[in-house]
C-alpha cells in the first residue's frame, strides 16, 4: 500500500503535484535569495513576475500580497517567506493572516502555549 499525500484539514501538505503547479511562482520566490534580484523585484514587481513566466493568478497573488492564496496555489511556505522578508513581515504576521487574527492575537495564542487541535 502506498501512502499518497495525506489530507489534513487546515494543513497544506506540499507534494510533487503542488510543486508542479507552483513551479514558476516558487522559482521566482527562490530567486529572491539573491540581493540583486531583490532590488530588481522591488523596482518593478510586475515585470519581475513576467520575467519568471508567472501565470496571471500567481502574479496577482504576489502583487496583492495574498499570502493565503499563494500557499493555496502551490507556493511552498519557505519560498513565500522570502517575499515576506522583503516586506519586513514576520512569521507571526503571516500566521495572523492564515488564521484570520491580528498579529497580536496570533502572538498571544502562541505565548499562551500554542494553538491546539484534535
Amino acid at each position: 500500500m502506498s501512502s499518497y499525500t495525506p489530507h489534513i484539514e487546515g494543513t497544506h501538505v506540499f507534494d510533487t503535484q503542488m510543486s508542479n503547479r507552483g513551479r514558476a511562482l516558487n522559482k521566482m520566490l527562490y530567486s529572491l535569495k539573491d540581493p540583486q534580484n531583490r532590488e530588481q523585484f522591488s523596482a518593478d514587481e510586475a515585470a519581475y513576475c513576467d520575467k519568471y513566466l508567472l501565470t496571471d493568478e500567481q502574479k496577482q497573488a504576489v502583487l496583492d500580497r495574498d499570502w493565503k492564496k499563494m500557499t493555496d496555489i502551490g507556493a511552498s511556505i519557505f519560498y513565500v517567506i522570502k517575499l515576506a522578508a522583503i516586506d519586513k513581515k514576520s512569521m507571526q504576521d503571516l500566521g495572523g493572516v492564515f488564521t484570520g487574527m491580528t498579529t497580536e492575537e496570533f502572538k498571544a495564542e502562541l505565548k499562551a502555549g500554542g494553538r491546539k487541535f484534535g
Partner: protein
Amino acid sequence: MAEIIWGLATSHVPSIGAAMDGKKTEDELWKPLFDGYGPAREWMAQHTPDVAVVVYNDHANALGLEMIPTFSIGTADHYDVADEGYGPRQVPDVVGAPDLSEHVLVNLVDEGFDMTVLQELDVDHGLTVPLSVYTPEPGDAWPCKVVPILVNVLQYPQPTAQRCLQLGEALGRAIRSFPKDIKVAVFGTGGMSHQLSGERAGLINQEFDRNFLEKIETDPQSLAEISRADYIKEAGSEGIEMIMWLIMRGALGDNIRRIHDTYHVPASNTAAALALFATDAVAEEGSEEAAA
C-alpha cells in the same frame, strides 16, 4: 578509530539565531529558552568534538525545487553561510571535513542508502543555528569541522521515520569505522511541533513533543513507527522535521545517557527543545572510567 561522543537534538528556528545575533537572549521572551541551554552548553564545552555531523534541512536557501534529494551529504571543504533574504548571518563560514564525508558517503552507499552528493552548499539557519546553540560565541571560527547531512522534510513524500532511524544506525557504523582517532558529535535538528501555514498555523502539541523528548532516549523505535501522516497531523506540517532527530539517535547506539534537556514554547511559531545525550564513549563523571 573515530568515536561518537555525544548527540544533540535541537530546534533550529531562525529566530533563535536572530535572538543571539541581536543580543536579545536576556529579554523576557527569550531568557527561559537560553537559560535552559546553559547546562548543556557547559557540558559540551568540556567535551569538544573534532567534527560535528549536522543533520538538518535546507529551507529554500541552497536547494531549489527543481531537484529534491531525500538524503544528501556535503563533501566540500568549505560551506558559505547562505543569504536567507536579509543578508547572511554574521557567523563564521563552515569548514568541512571532506575525508570523513567521503568515508561516510562510501559506507552509506555500500549499505544501500541512496545518497545525493553535494559538492557545493550554502548552509542556512538549519545548520548554523544549532552550531550557535552549541557555541554561542564562536569568534572567528567554529570550534569544529562539519559534515552536513540534509534531509527532505519540505516535500511529500519525506523519508519514513523508520528509514531515518536506519540511516542513523548506518551513519553510526560509518563514523565509528573511520580510521582516524577523532571525536565526533552528531546533531539532529528541527522541531518540535509547529505549522507555519494554513488554518492550523500556530499549532503546538505539547503532549506529542513531551512524549517524543522522552522516547527519543528510551524507545526511538516507537517514534520510527509513527507514519508521516501522523507526524503532520500531530506535530504540524513543519513538525515532521523531528524525523531528523531519529538519524542522530540511530547514530548514537544503544547505550546513551541524558545529560540535559529543555522545552520551551514559543520560539517564533514553534515549540523549541534541546536534548543532549552522551554515548558510552564518554565516561560518567565520578565513575571509575572517569578516574582511570
